[in-house]
């Protein structure tokens, strides 16, 4: 469980940590679009530079990001290989066997896919490593506010999200505890064949679900006992304010986007 970096907060004091979570969420979203807009090597070089700069200014060591990549490795490798072998013909053909072709276009395509994956994972890892889950929830609900006009229960959704995030570490602890108890009873997690591995998770999942349901029931009782009602308008303990550093970050980002657009093939 401890190798699972993606989705975990690393408390440090850097400009990236102090940015408004709304800023970071919107930036990450825009970055996603920007990554797909880039198409020339130079435009990717600019984005790689921007990503590295963002990582450096977060004071989080690069090793953490590489660790975060590990669980995604198979997905990336699979996509790259598929892209490499099944790309439409184009340019020089290096290898041909029945329906499999390795062509110049295929090579370029898989390279591009690889870089896109890398950039997006790096940036979203940066978002979660530098932002507390609760701040992400607050930011999201603040960004979703306009949806109230179409009668979407934003406050209730935000509360659900905040509770879900709040209980991730609790459930992780619980899972570790149950795993330990079952390992002490002779279960080998993550060893043996696929079926054996899948089977070994039953002694983990059943107790985990039991405890999650019990917790949910206790929590709802406790919330109702303290007068919680979902229709009420709720005020917030954390109030987000837009700072100068947010404006500055957006300016830098817009410049990067401009540079990327200028170097892209049209």
């Amino acid at each position, binding site marked *: 469980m401890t190798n699972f970096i993606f989705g975990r907060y690393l408390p440090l004091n850097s400009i990236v940590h102090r940015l408004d979570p709304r800023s970071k969420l919107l930036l990450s979203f825009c970055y996603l679009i920007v990554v797909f807009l880039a198409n020339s090597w130079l435009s990717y070089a600019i984005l790689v530079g921007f990503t590295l700069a963002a990582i450096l200014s977060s004071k989080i060591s690069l090793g953490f990001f590489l660790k975060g990549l590990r669980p995604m490795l198979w997905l990336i490798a699979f996509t790259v290989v598929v892209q490499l072998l099944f790309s439409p013909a184009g340019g020089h053909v290096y290898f041909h066997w029945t329906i499999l072709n390795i062509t110049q276009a295929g090579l370029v395509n898989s390279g591009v896919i690889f870089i896109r994956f890398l950039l997006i994972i790096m940036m979203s890892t940066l978002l979660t490593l530098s932002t507390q889950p609760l701040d992400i929830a607050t930011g999201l609900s603040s960004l979703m506010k306009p949806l109230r006009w179409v009668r979407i229960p934003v406050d209730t959704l935000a509360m659900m999200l905040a509770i879900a995030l709040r209980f991730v570490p609790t459930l992780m602890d619980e899972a570790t505890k149950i795993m*330990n108890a079952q390992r002490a009873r002779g279960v080998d997690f993550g060893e043996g064949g696929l079926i054996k591995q899948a089977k070994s998770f039953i002694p983990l999942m059943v107790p985990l679900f039991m405890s999650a349901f019990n917790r949910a029931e206790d929590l709802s009782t406790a919330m109702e006992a303290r007068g919680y009602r979902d229709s009420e308008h709720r005020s917030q303990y954390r109030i987000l304010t837009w700072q100068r550093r947010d404006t500055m970050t957006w300016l830098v980002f817009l410049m990067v986007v401009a540079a990327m657009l200028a170097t892209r093939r049209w």
Partner: protein
Amino acid sequence: MAITFEHVGYTYQAGTPMATPALSDISFTVPDHGYLAIIGHTGSGKSTLIQQINALLKPTTGKITVDGFTITPQTTNADLKPLRRHVGMVFQFPESQLFEETIQRDIAFGPQNFGVSEAEANQRALEMLRTVGLDESFAKRSPFELSGGQMRRVAIAGVLAMQPKVLILDEPTAGLDPQGRLEMMTLFNRLHQEQGLTIILVTHQMEDVATYADEVAVMQAGKLLTCATPQEVFSDPAWVQSSDIAVPRAAKFAQRLGERGVKWDQLPLTADQLADQLVRQWPGTGAKHD
């Protein structure tokens, strides 16, 4: 099975910015058939310490020997299964480990993982049900329809069914009523006396320490303050005061009597010892007691 800790240290998430040292330089020995109690405040490292014994956590420094097995930071998981078979571990609130459809199958789960045949494991399950004070009518019921106390018993039966030689108990009586607590502690003591199990008990109940343990280890902030007999640990009021540990109620009562002039050959730690010594000091008063 004897257990030896040599300069054991453990750090959570070693090598990351979140690294937190939990144990440092722990050395002690529990003899074969020993009964060790571990006391200390919440967060003092008790639970981390006991998880080292069956290598659920491996030490970051130092060495642990459990009979023939040696656990060092380099030990790999493959070497650990035979060890875990002999070291039974009852976690805090062990009822949360139940998962099977029937109680019998849940109890038989552990032994089967260690290569015991299904028939024999089921047989053991029935035996263990009786050992923990439930009867065979429970065997085919679902563990989830039991009361909290009964679930606890089933979970403990599931550990005992592995027939471990060392039994580690992490606050096994937390949340039980006084009657259940007494029955539970009597059961563990019987296993210790009759089957020679080595027992390691983490507890906040000083009465249990005084009544059952041969030795008591006092933990504070990841360090082992002392490891000695309960008599030695509780008899030194100044040391007890400075290391911020509680004293059994009978011992506290005896100390208060001591302040008013009653002399003790040896500070009584349990209500029985207290009564015996008082009777000896005032002959004639104990006739009805016996």
